[in-house]
């Protein structure tokens, strides 16, 4: 399944400057793994071992994946995943 991933500005140096890229997988985890295969350098910035880093938020369409099934959340064709820095607000 092809999922669109929105890349925040500071990560675009690792995606050849692209603001959106496509990746494949049946879960958020698989899609982010595929993203990392296509663009080495992304994975270590998003993940600390098996877990997402503390200050990285991932959204499936408009929903924070922590309110879904986290990285195991199922995705379908046409979904959009957004990677958004968490250090904001307050």
């Amino acid at each position, binding site marked *: 399944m092809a999922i669109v991933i929105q890349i925040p500005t500071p990560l675009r140096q690792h995606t050849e400057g692209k603001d959106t890229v496509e990746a494949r997988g049946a879960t958020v985890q698989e899609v982010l793994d595929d993203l990392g295969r296509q663009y080495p350098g992304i994975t270590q910035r998003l993940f600390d071992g098996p877990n997402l*880093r503390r200050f990285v938020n991932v959204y499936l369409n408009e929903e924070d994946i922590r309110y879904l099934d986290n990285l195991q959340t199922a995705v379908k064709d046409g979904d959009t995943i957004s990677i958004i820095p968490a250090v904001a607000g307050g």
Partner: protein
Amino acid sequence: MTSSAVRGLKCRLCGKSYPVQALNFCTEDFGPLEVDYDYDAIRALISREQLASRPKTMWKYRELLPLDGEPTVGLQVGGTPLVPAPRLARELGVRSVWIKNDAVNFPTLSFKDRVVSVALSKAREFGFRTVGCASTGNLANSVAANAAAAGLAAYILVPADLERAKILGTSVYGARLVGVRGTYDQVNRLCTQIAFKYGWGFVNINLRPFYAEGSKTMGYEIAEQLGWRLPQHVVCPMAGGSLIGKIAKAFQELTLLELVEATPWKIHGAQAAGCSPIVTAIKNGWETHRPVKKPNTIAKSLAIGDPADGYFAAKVIRDSGGWGEEATDGEIAEAMTLLARTTGIFAETAGGVTLAAAIKLIEQGRIGRADEVVLCITGNGLKTQDAIAHLLEAPAIINPSLEEFDPLVGDDAVLVRQAAEELQAAGV
């Protein structure tokens, strides 16, 4: 000039250094960036005597704030009263209570004027002409007012269901106000995307490292107003969790700079029961908070379900030996009226949260009966009047005649006589 004391920005997780710029997170691990100071340089620049001679605004501590030049926005901000509250102390059964009263901060009656004046002064140094924020209300008011004074365009995004006073108190300044259908956290996420796309200066996004430093001045003022010493306890409301960390940082800096003695202090955090991710983390011994999807509380200014500084707030509380408590809507409203009746200070709902939490901390013995406590009041009750309307007696309505007035006093006189009779019967 203060540029000499700022070394740059530094990631709070990995320590990577960055030059001063409008950036709030580390590009290696997304950790928050914080201003890095040369404290040896600052030590040579300030003393108690020198600080005492300066005008009573937050800018007296300018060497500890991250501007290159003189401030250009919010020159009158800060210097709010630290009010002794002996009647409240008796009511609570503790030795001493002080109210740090940012309900009368200038110009928009909340502590947010402190952070905004730093953020917008910095925005001007960076050359931004359009600024913005995601807000639960008080920040919206402050950005709108200070941007208007500075001639900056402002885009302000808030949850669409905010209190009317906070909506009108933003629009009046000519800011472009957008109400978003959703929670604050959803507003915040949208603002992060807007900041990336439009490149504006969002005070609590890309300007956040500078913005957050403004909160330290509340801590400096508390220490100076106590006669250059640190209080045993501080109770502070928590929304995004930044303020509590910055008050603690202020105490640590003053100690490092030897402006105060290194006496022990504890900092405690207060949240509403309908949105208490940080307090819940503390009570459960979790390293960090779990986000609350749908906050539900009358303390809308604190309704942040996924606090950006949740991890650091929980840590600073634990490290100080403090604790966290929460307050229900009923407890919040009761505490607002208790504060008003015993101190003459009308705080917004967040102030009710703070006092209600303090009451619980005292009952639990976490704040000792012989101790001294400072309550941080961060916003003004005039903005959240609906919260207490149901607790207050409606005024008697009469015609302009003495005959109609007399019976009102008459009722009271009966009560006084009955009380006297009861005392006599009891043999007092």
